[in-house]
């Protein structure tokens, strides 16, 4: 590697690729995985994507959007809750989509926005986290993992990626929660919600959240917040998948259908 750096006086990759493919290269520090997409010369990815969705009558592709995800910190760690509805425009693809990626036993990533983008890029992140562990013999911190994701996405700025993700975990600095999105925002905080139903989830979370919640109270709050968002937002629904990140790793708390939750809360209110 060092010798290559010294000898490299010209970008030999650009010369060797056939048809003069333009390399919008974002070097992510790992030679092993190829995260660089070669795009044909003269094609701007985002305008190309727009033509697919605007075409009247002919081919009209609508990419998966619509979600509610949330995560908050409290005295016993981090609670993560997501819905599981996957939509393409008006059509519901599936009610049982996994919107939480288990990166390693201490790290979780949530997904909102375009399903394909999220699934791909968070798996690339998981790859990098694994390589980090192999190289450094310790788990990657939440801060570093979120920065890796953020820098990867920053390279594709303006090209039409749609990712709103929260990286949640527990590392040597304690519980960690970061929000990362496709325009390069990376925020550390105590409470975030993303997706089309995020405002409804914020409403319930903010009014019920305290740092000193007990564990059952925290589970209830997270579940209620997602449930209320699925009730009001057409693009969220299915089931509520809930995880709890503790010091010794995350556990999957529950998976409950929102229809059953509706009956449960309706009964309680009466």
């Amino acid at each position: 590697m060092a010798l290559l750096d010294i000898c490299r006086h010209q970008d030999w990759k650009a010369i060797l690729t056939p048809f003069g493919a333009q390399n919008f290269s974002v070097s992510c520090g790992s030679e092993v995985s190829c995260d660089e997409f070669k795009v044909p010369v003269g094609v701007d990815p985002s305008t190309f994507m727009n033509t697919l969705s605007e075409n009247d009558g002919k081919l009209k592709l609508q990419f998966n959007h619509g979600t509610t995800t949330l995560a908050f910190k409290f005295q016993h760690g981090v609670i993560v809750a997501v819905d599981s509805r996957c939509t393409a425009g008006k059509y519901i693809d599936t009610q049982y989509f996994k919107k939480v990626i288990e990166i390693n036993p201490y790290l979780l990533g949530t997904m909102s926005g375009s399903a394909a983008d999220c699934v791909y890029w968070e798996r690339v992140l998981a790859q990098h986290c694994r390589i980090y562990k192999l190289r450094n013999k310790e788990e990657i911190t939440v801060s570093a993992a979120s920065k890796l994701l953020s820098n990867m996405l920053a390279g594709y700025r303006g090209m039409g990626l749609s990712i709103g993700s929260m990286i949640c975990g527990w590392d040597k600095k304690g519980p960690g929660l970061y929000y990362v999105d496709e325009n390069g925002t990376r925020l550390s905080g105590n409470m975030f919600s993303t997706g089309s139903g995020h405002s409804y989830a914020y409403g319930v979370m903010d009014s019920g959240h305290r740092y000193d919640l007990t564990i059952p109270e925290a589970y209830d709050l997270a579940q209620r917040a997602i449930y209320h968002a699925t009730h009001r937002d057409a693009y969220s629904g299915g089931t509520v998948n809930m995880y709890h990140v503790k010091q010794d790793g995350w556990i999957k708390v529950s998976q409950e259908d929102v229809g059953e939750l509706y009956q449960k809360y309706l009964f309680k209110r009466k």
Partner: protein
Amino acid sequence: MEYLIGIQGPDFVLVAADTVAASSIIQMKHDYDKMFKLSEKILLLCVGEAGDTVQFAEYIQKNVQLYKMRNGYELSPDAAANFTRKNLADYLRSRTPYHVNLLLAGYDDHDGPALYYMDYLSSLAKAPFAAHGYGAFLTLSILDRYYKPELTREEAVELLKKCVDELNKRFILNLPAFNVRLIDKHGIKDLEKLPLATTSTS
């Protein structure tokens, strides 16, 4: 939405920024720091498009630090400001321009305090006082009216409070808190956050 302000005195620069990180109608973070420390006596205040701010500011920050590592001494505020402007200008007509508005504040041991105003079109101006954001429309006239070049630190903080009071009174958006820092020959110092917790503004 976002607000930056800087006031230069005879031997100091006072800077303040709001602490809200917003995404459309939601305040995602209430305690977000928009100031980036370039060196012991230089601060870069950066607002603008979501990811661009952090990416650009950190890029400048790391390059200024690299200069110090390579050469053994730090860039002066004037040099750092011009370096920043050059980078902004180079990216302006590229595929990915950075939409960021900046204030660069610093203290040079030879030339004294300096405040630079930069905008997303990469214009650069050295100014005795400056502001960015919608709040600037309300506060620049206050700065014009009450600023004097030989103002003391206390007078500068009072002037800053006048500006913040005006925003609380007339600005349609809620800016609940501001980070305030002072740069002088001793370095960068954190001052009390505004508005003060005890006082209430109607």
